[in-house]
């Protein structure tokens, strides 16, 4: 921490100010300590808070959830229908392609984006999943993760761009994103089931809540990091704000935004097993069932498949980021 140097002859110097502030702080702490001491001497460990409002506040929140469930049904039903449409389309598309097709396709993409090693890993990993009988589960999980990531990007891009342009919105947004990342997901899973009813839809919703923050944060950061000179130059050529955004800022920020999407995908995969507790299918369900039957082996197989999937997707998206960065550097 670097303190500003005391400026001369300004009535009261900074160090004096610092001392008196410390004195006041010390005095305050002393008074508090004396009160604590007195309270401890009189009541000891028996001292309790004046009221215990936990149950009644909890009941209030329950009432709000119930009210939302009854009165927000039109909204939740609409969201549900859209999400189900995307999910079923994705899943059908993934399962429509016979497995050799998908294996070859992913291996070729890996070869292009990540090199021989990544391609070999992708091939072996996918063959392994198939040979262990987890292909359908894996595709269901993939559909779930892709749906959640697609919707997350749809939310994160506009929100991130707006946050980059508006500092006040950014200041409000930040604690909300912190909350979304740290709030234990079980807290919002139960309301999510009540609103969206069991299955992949509440799972997608819960996954979005957990996975969208990095995409928003890194979109925000990426746009802010575009150098002011470039923005200035673009303006001087007479770009409209829309052109500035779509032709200059977003392309320049693309590597950072892609890094955010990569993080979002990884976090979405991390939610797969938790999502299975609200009835999401796929690998998470396999792990969940194995746990219920105390079969650590089956759980390990399912878990390893999730890891393989995560590594392949991670290398592929990172490959995209790298290609994009190289392009921006003009190589």
């Amino acid at each position, binding site marked *: 921490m670097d303190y500003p140097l005391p400026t001369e002859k300004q009535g009261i110097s900074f160090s004096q100010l610092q001392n008196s502030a410390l004195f006041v702080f010390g005095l305050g702490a002393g008074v508090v300590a004396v009160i604590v001491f007195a309270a401890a001497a009189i009541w000891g460990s028996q001292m309790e808070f004046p009221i215990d409002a936990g149950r009644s506040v909890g009941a209030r929140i329950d009432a709000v959830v119930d009210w939302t469930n009854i009165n927000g049904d039109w909204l939740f039903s609409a969201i549900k229908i859209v999400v189900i449409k995307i999910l079923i389309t994705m899943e059908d598309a993934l399962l429509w392609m016979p497995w050799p097709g998908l294996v070859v396709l992913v291996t070729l993409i890996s070869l292009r984006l990540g090199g021989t090693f990544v391609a070999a890993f992708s091939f072996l990993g996918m063959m392994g999943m198939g040979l262990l009988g987890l292909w359908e589960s894996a595709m269901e999980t993939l559909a779930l993760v892709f749906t959640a990531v697609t919707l997350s990007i749809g939310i994160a891009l506009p929100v991130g761009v707006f946050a980059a342009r508006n500092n006040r919105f950014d200041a409000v947004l930040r604690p909300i994103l912190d909350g979304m990342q740290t709030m234990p997901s079980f807290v919002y899973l139960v309301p999510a*089931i009540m609103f969206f009813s069991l299955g992949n839809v509440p799972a997608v919703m819960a996954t979005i809540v957990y996975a969208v923050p990095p995409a928003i944060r890194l979109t925000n950061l990426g746009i802010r990091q575009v150098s002011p000179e470039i923005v200035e130059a673009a303006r001087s050529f007479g770009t409209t704000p829309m052109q500035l955004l779509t032709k200059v800022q977003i392309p320049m920020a693309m590597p950072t935004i892609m890094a955010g999407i990569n993080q979002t995908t990884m976090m979405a995969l991390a939610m797969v097993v938790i999502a299975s507790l609200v009835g999401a299918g796929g690998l998470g369900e396999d792990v*969940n069932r194995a746990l*219920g039957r105390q079969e650590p082996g089956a759980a390990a197989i399912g878990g390893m498949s999730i890891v393989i999937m995560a590594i392949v997707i991670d290398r592929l998206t990172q490959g995209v980021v790298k290609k994009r960065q190289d392009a921006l550097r003009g190589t």
Partner: protein
Amino acid sequence: MSFITSHKGLWALVIMAVAMLGAACGSDPTSTAPAVNQPTQTPVIIEKEVTKFVEVETEKQVEVTKEVQVEVTKVVQVVATPTPAPKDVIIFSDLNWDSIQLQNRIAMFIVENGYGYPVDTVTGNTISGFVGLEQGDMHVTMEIWLPNQQVVWDKAIRRGDIQSVGSSLDDNWQSAFVIPTYVAEANPGLKTVADLKKPEYMNLFVTPDSRGKARLVTCVPGWECEKTNENKIVAYGLEDVIDLRNPGSGAGLFADLEGAYQRGDNWLGYLWGPTKPAAELDLTLLEEPEYSDACWAADQGCAYPSAAVLVAVHSSLPPRAPDVVEFLRNWDFTAAAQVSAEGWMADNNESVDAAALWYLANQQDIWTQMVPADVASKIIAALP
């Protein structure tokens, strides 16, 4: 840290240090405890201090007995006289549903106050709770549901880690497929599971993601009923009618039912009792052919048998606490008692802790049958 060199900063530090030292001394109950009879204090305060003093003493006793325990058992081995051995803590597994939590609190109050064992709980869910019992991290589980936990139960019995000492919730609600009563009233023709074959009833439960079939929320993955429900659907010839929906967890099943019930939506699913939704919501059971061993062995195409809910203990408990095991053998807590306690909790917005005391205070003629008379009188004396 330049402020330490300045005098005012130093003062502040000294004040803080003195105050903290004082607080630290003051908060230590043993140092203030001997000063009980200070005449300068008002009578009210003296009374408070006395009650505090007693509590500290009992806590101390527990700690001391724990430390001494090893030596005493050695003495017992040599002399072999039945000296009252110091009692070690008995841990109940506190699983995440109401009926077991209430039973735990009732049983714990009895064991602690009637038999003098220190008690504690460890929180868990079906899986972690079961593993904890096998390992001996917990000693008593008041509810093991069979046949749902049959797979893990059989494994544990084979290894000899745990044993059943009794049963609870003997009159439990049979597992069944249920619909909310408002659905049954709107569709008087829908009485049995087989009625779902009729398109007009199947269509009631079709949802956007059920691919044109009736959505039936089935049992928690990994429980035996998941498999059983699949067999039933095949036995009833409902494969093309029913889309079994995995609820992921008990909490998921209950929340889905609760949410649909609030909205007045059509809902079809598997449920058992006593559970919170079974107690609170007005539900109708769909009829199935009556249970028989023969049909169960053939294709499970009939109603569920009543579940066996076992009280299980870790194998280390019977040798060291035979009196508690004897009490658990006499354990007689019915689903009806659970439902009435559940109702009392909902009406008064109270916790399970309060409900346990309410039960002990109001159902004395039932629980006093489970314990010897002298133990019962100790428990009654300990009730608040």
